[in-house]
């Protein structure tokens, strides 16, 4: 009778990393669906392309690093990185932009740091930021004009050929900047009501975008309900954006209104799916609040006074830098202690 010798606990919960990641993937589906419905096939094609490149890059790197490939691939984290990039890159971005973003995310930001769990920076956002500064034109003009999939959006074949065409053909007919971007540039010379007449704003906040953000919010709430993420980071980030907007940008004739900040751009995707990446986020509840709020503040600052139309990637990366510091100074108060032990241990402390 060969008895198992094992350290306690002997019972284990059912949750696994691969299942957690699978839930994350599932939770993005409403958002992806909304993107496809309102902006055409671009994001779906991007997601498939990015996930494929991510899995290939991950496998290649694991092979080079002599790690078991199947064991690590099945944790689904590479797929999530690809998925998040596919969701956040411009729908009609050329394929090589997406590929560069994914490759740098998986290879540079994740595997070269030691693979899953060892990366200080959010891999998807490293890839995104890298292509954003490297190919600014491709990254800012390839946002699809809103057009319902079954009405005005380009056909699947057109989208595919746009993404994979060798040279950037003139596709101005259905591409352009995001609502946040165009509002920021036009408000300098127009009034708010004139700017909002543009079709990209539609009847609501920003045509199509509001649905996409609502869908990502629904997915995020699902993750919250499943306790895969906690409320601290998304709430702190959204609250910080709101407070900043109300405090500094309440004049719609000068600054984009709060509704646009929350429901246009990648705000909800960022708040629930990107900023909550556990590996590169702060750990304690208090730390998560600081981390999320920091991202929200930076997002507002960069969007309003910076040169880039959206700011999730830079804000997340900047706060990633701050995570070790935040973690050192925000441990919870342990049971039986009068106060939390902050800071880094010194030699004198037992």
């Amino acid at each position, binding site marked *: 009778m060969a008895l198992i010798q094992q350290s306690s606990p002997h019972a284990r919960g059912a949750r696994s990393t691969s299942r957690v990641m699978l839930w994350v993937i599932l939770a993005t589906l409403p958002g992806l669906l909304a993107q496809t419905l309102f902006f055409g096939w671009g994001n779906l094609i991007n997601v498939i392309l990015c996930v494929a490149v991510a899995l290939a890059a991950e496998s290649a790197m694991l092979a080079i690093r002599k790690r078991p490939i199947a064991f690590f691939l099945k944790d689904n984290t590479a797929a999530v990185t690809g998925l998040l990039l596919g969701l956040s890159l411009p729908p009609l971005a050329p394929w090589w932009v997406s590929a560069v973003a994914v490759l740098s995310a998986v290879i540079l930001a994740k595997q070269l740091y030691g693979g899953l*769990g*060892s990366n200080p920076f959010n891999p998807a956002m490293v890839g995104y930021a890298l292509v954003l500064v490297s190919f600014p034109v491709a990254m800012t003009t390839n946002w699809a004009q809103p057009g319902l999939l079954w009405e005005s959006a380009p056909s699947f074949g057109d989208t595919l050929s746009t993404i994979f065409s060798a040279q950037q053909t003139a596709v101005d007919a259905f591409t352009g900047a995001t609502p946040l971007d165009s509002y920021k540039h036009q408000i300098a010379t127009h009034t708010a009501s004139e700017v909002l007449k543009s079709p990209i704003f539609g009847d609501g906040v920003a045509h199509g975008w509001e649905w996409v953000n609502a869908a990502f919010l629904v997915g995020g709430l699902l993750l919250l309900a499943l306790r895969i993420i906690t409320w601290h980071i998304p709430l702190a980030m959204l609250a910080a954006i709101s407070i900043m907007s109300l405090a500094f940008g309440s004049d719609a004739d000068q600054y984009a209104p709060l509704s646009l900040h929350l429901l246009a751009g990648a705000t909800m995707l960022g708040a629930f799916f990107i900023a909550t990446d556990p590996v590169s986020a702060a750990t304690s509840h208090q730390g998560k609040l600081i981390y999320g709020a920091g991202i929200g503040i930076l997002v507002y600052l960069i969007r309003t006074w910076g040169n880039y139309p959206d700011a999730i990637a830079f804000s997340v990366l900047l706060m990633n830098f701050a995570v070790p510091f935040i973690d050192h100074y925000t441990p919870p108060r342990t049971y039986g*202690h009068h106060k939390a032990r902050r800071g880094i241990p010194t030699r004198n402390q037992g």
Partner: protein
Amino acid sequence: MSKLWSFTGGIHPPERKELSTGRAIENAGIPEQLILPLQQHIGSPAETIVAVGDKVLKGQPLAAVDGPVGVPVHAPTSGQIEAIIQHPVPHPSGMSDWCILLRPDGEDTWGERHPLEDYRNLDREEVLAAIRNAGIAGMGGAGFPTNIKLRPPRDRKVSTLILNGAECEPYITADDMVMRERAPEIIAGLKVMAWILRPERCVIAIEDNKPQAIASVRAACAGTQIEVMVIPTKYPSGGEKQLVQILTGMEVPHGGIPADIGVMCQNVSTAIAVGRAVFQGEPLISRITTVTGEAVSNPGNFEVLLGTPVSYLLERSALNSNRLNRLVMGGPMMGYTLQGTEIPLIKTSNCIIAATASELPDPEPEQPCIRCGSCAEVCPMDLLPQQMFWHAKAEEFDKAEHLNLFDCIECGACSYVCPSSIPLVQYYRFAKGEIRTQQAEQLKADRARERFEARQARLEREAAEKEAKRKERARAAAEAQARKQAEASAAAAEPADDRAAKAAMVQEALARKKAKADAVATPASTEVADVNALREQLDKARGKLANMQGMLDEARAAGADSVEKLERAVAKNQERVQRAEEALAAAQEAPQPTPEPVAPVQSPPSQEAAQVMPDLAELEAQLDKARDKLATMQGMLDEALANGADNAEKLERAVAKNRQRVERAESALAEARHQLEAQAADQ
């Protein structure tokens, strides 16, 4: 109903308690052999007080503890002591320890019992002693001697006595069944403990998944002030610190005990044992143990004699050994695996789980931590498990400790929820073990250093003492020298004026001569003077010897070439001292009334010559001595100069002085001769 608080974190693993609550507590009976470990409690192990071959009665003490922390071990049934050997005991490491093997005779004959029915009229210390003598140690967890726990520090008044019937671990139902079936006994034991402690509140806490136990205990408490508190089912609510928080809202301070905040927790089974010890005079020789798991067909709770082998119980529960994959002593969250079944049940053994492979599956391979924070969400101590894991894995133990690693109660909630299958608790145990080892080694190193420094200090002190003695000797020698010089300079009244010196020397010689002559004239006084002179000589010789000896020591220490020469000189001086001593002794022994000198009167004319003549001889001797000394000194100086020794300068001065002396002696001699010649010419 009093207010309930909550603790942070916690988990809800499948309870699986229904497996073993299907039937009433069953008496497991008497196995063929009982294995009784000498250490079934925290503290010092008990020492056997019986010998192999002894016949013992049920309840008879077999081993006792001298120290303050520890309780005795008793015979669970009557029989014969078969052996006292090293045998595997219940321990996570699977280690062996000293055990008494008892072969039951099947009679189950009780020995003497001394009930304390009227305990309320006794002194509390007497009751506590009875509890100790009954071998009672906490039966819920670590097995801390109950009598010690019941005697909190004098400045700590226990205002709330908690009886822990939470039994939050999955599978275990021992306390549940005890509460269902033996509630009155529990209350009786609780009353004894309450009488000892006089708390303001007595609370029995039971998780809400045990409705039958709650009803039974409530019924038993009817008419008393004991509160039955039903707490929500959440692991680990039965942990002492968590239970205290749930019931009082207070936290046990870090590094403290519940008594620090006026609370004490006791297990329900311990209460029964206390009651039995007091009312029946029965020691702790049996307990209720759950045998459960899918690998036994007949799971349930048994009243087992302590020392019963696990194999016996598994057999009674119809073990299907083909399906057995993991054998756990304790619960699935904090229990430990057993390596075999020939391990005895002890005072703290509340559960045996015979698990199949599907029931408690083998762990998945560990994946990287993704810092998801699930562990921190469930930690009942509000720690940061993932950070502690990170540092423990990196062996950055100071950082792990800074994150309050030692507050971890190893409840296993973090490992339970970890999506990466990381055995977190194992990492914490490793880190704790390493830190303890390091601390022990540090202590050892510190002690070794202290020892070394003490030795070093002692050696230095001894060397200093030696040096001081040596200096003392040198000083004495220098004084002697100085005295001698002073005499010499006294002899030469004006040292600068050679002539005067010479004259003085001559004068002195004359005086001595005259004294001697006087001595001849007045023998008694001469005798005294002579002894005095001899004593002075002896002193002088001794001083010189000491001086020489010091020089010799120094030379030896320096390894100088002059050692041999000095040795000779010392020997010579020793001889001289000896001679002087002998002379002195002889002089002293000489008969006091010296006989009248034969020739008391000498002719006056010859008197002068006679006075001068020996004087001359003496001067010559003096000169010789001085020359001798000078030669020695010169030799030493030459040598010192050749070696570049530090004392060369000193020696030079000494040589110069000696040379002067020689010169002086020479001229004194010449003068004396001259005078003598002049005298001769006069006559």
